[in-house]
């Protein structure tokens, strides 16, 4: 599904990613953990195509296609979805209009044709009920005046609606209380399938109690420094990142 080979990226001359290698197979859930500033969010932005980063080396293949040559929206239409750490507020664009425009843009890009309004409404209604996204939130401008939890639920609603092949969750747990975390995790788990992969980026092990990973990576200073199974997350929770920060810094 996703193959990252020796990926180096920098922003304004600062090297952030220093040789990332990562392979995710269909149906797998991978978690990336690591201390602040290790480059986790940068990796997610580079995958999605944010233009602030310069890729100096390496490649990213998504189902065999060279991701680095694709536009941001082409990546989305190909099935790559980034649930953002800080979903942006867009006054003047109604949430519902945004959802419909996004879904239809992807469908058209894939040659599937637009979804008719009644079918779209039905789909949104079903999914939003599960995620506790109210009609009022759908009518409001995108994310404007949403609480932290509402914004994250709205991210997961987009993910559920767009049915991507690879879901990248960038610190989706940040700013969530226990109840919100449960709703969001259930939403994510409902999307698990043998054809869909996930990359979960988080500081804390807590989220991984709900979304159980197959593989856990530790990222530090722009590299993956350790890979293990879900027990690695528990180990990190107990011992912290000192092992890595000490080791690499020494």
């Amino acid at each position, binding site marked *: 599904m996703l193959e990252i080979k020796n990926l180096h990226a920098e922003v304004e001359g600062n090297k952030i990613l220093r040789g990332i290698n990562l392979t995710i197979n269909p149906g797998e859930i991978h978690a990336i953990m690591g201390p602040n500033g290790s480059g986790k969010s940068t990796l997610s932005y580079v995958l*999605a*195509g*944010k*233009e602030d980063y310069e890729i100096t080396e390496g490649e990213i293949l998504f189902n065999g296609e060279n991701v680095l040559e694709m*536009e*941001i*929206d082409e*990546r*989305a*239409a190909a099935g790559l*979805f*980034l649930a*953002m750490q800080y*979903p*942006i507020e*867009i*006054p*003047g*664009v109604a949430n519902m209009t*945004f959802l419909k*425009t*996004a*879904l239809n*843009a*992807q469908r058209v*890009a894939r040659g599937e044709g637009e979804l008719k309004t009644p079918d779209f409404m039905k789909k949104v209604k079903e999914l939003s009920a599960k995620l506790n996204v109210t009609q009022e939130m759908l009518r409001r*401008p995108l994310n404007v005046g949403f609480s932290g939890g509402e914004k994250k639920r709205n991210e997961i609603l*987009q993910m559920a609606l*767009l049915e991507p092949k690879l879901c990248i969750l960038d610190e989706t747990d940040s700013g969530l209380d226990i109840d919100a975390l449960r709703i969001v995790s259930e939403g994510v788990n409902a999307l698990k399938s043998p054809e869909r992969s996930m990359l979960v980026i988080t500081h804390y092990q807590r989220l991984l109690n709900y979304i159980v990973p197959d593989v856990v990576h530790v990222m530090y200073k722009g590299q993956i420094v350790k890979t293990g199974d879900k027990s690695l997350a528990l180990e990190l929770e107990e011992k912290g990142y000192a092992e890595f920060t000490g080791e690499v810094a020494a």
Partner: protein
Amino acid sequence: MTTPAIKTAADKALASLIESAKGALPGNESFASLRSAAASAFEENGLPTRRVEEWKYSDLKKAMPADLALAQPVDSALAKQQLSGADIIKAVETCRLVLVNGIYSAELSDLADLGDAISVRSVAEALQAGEFQLDDPAIAQGDIALSLNTALLQDGVIVEIAAGAEIDKPLEIRHIMIGGGMATVRNRVVIGKGSKVGVIETFTGDEAAYQLNTAIDYRVADDAKLNVLRIINEGDNGLHLGSTTATVGGHVHFEHFTLSASGKFVRSQSFVAMLGEYSDADLFGASLVNGSRHSDITLKMDHAVPNCNSKEQYRTVLDDKAVGVFQGQIIVRQYAQKTDAKMMSQALLLSEDASFNNKPELEIYADDVVCGHGATCGELDEDLLFYLRARGISKDLAKKMLVMAFLAEAIENVSDDRFVEALEAYILDRLGLAD
């Protein structure tokens, strides 16, 4: 002010047009003397140079062509045909008054649902009968566009709305230019005490080079509610010199929205005088300027009496090599205590070659008032673009959505839902976002 002699070809052409048209223009003797006073003033000053403060950012001398002639009367069959394409507010049903090349056409107007509360008369006819007096508010005195309007005035409509009338269907005053040339219009809308009415002014034209000098005078009596929507949709070679004057009585709610959407050179200026206490005036607007177009919104708000509120909020989107201007002046006279006036002008630049001139001015002589102004000028937010594109929306479509979103915040000020619908439909269509 020094008096520059008439120099440019456009000045000469205009002076000779005023001279040659004199005999053919309507009006009794007393109006003829007003015309010649305006003509002499023009002889003396010519078109404003950029040294004239009010015209610093809009070079009318340069914009006015050197080959000027009055627009010709149009065959009514042709006018009818053009008129169907000039329907730019399909979303709203209106009673319609039509002016073709500056001349009121009762035949082309649709007054079926007008009712008894509205009367309509042609300005040319009133001028002949000596029944049309010019009486501009103090802040509009000496304005060059209005002075030229007096010199060359051809026709217009005088609409009177009876006291206490509540008019359901908005009244549309539709201006259409066909085949090029210069036309000069002055309309007057008299809003009776306690009446409620919506007026839509639309301006369209074909591809020919033309110059429309259009003015409208709103006289709003006490307790009335007036909503105005003004859509400037001139042809690509059209020059639009538009003036709004309004005198506002007491306990009035006056709301005015200008959409400057097309035309080669557009100057839309408003002069509003608050003359009665406890009134609100909301002046809103949005401008979409692209190509090498020039669009100027100029307003003067005169708070002459106490206890009134005014809001001035404008948004401008500029692309390509377009030039935008916003000049907003709020005057609070010494006697106008407890005035609350807020002005905001925001621009969005989509191109590095576009430019925007933003000049808010407050002139406050009273000491117990709340007044403020703000001005911003920025580009599209890259983070917003990224968010939309990361959901699969193309760059082009994402930009358009953000432009719409920027303008939607101006439109949401409008209280009449029908006007909101008309504006949204127009802008969505213009941006290519309509379903």
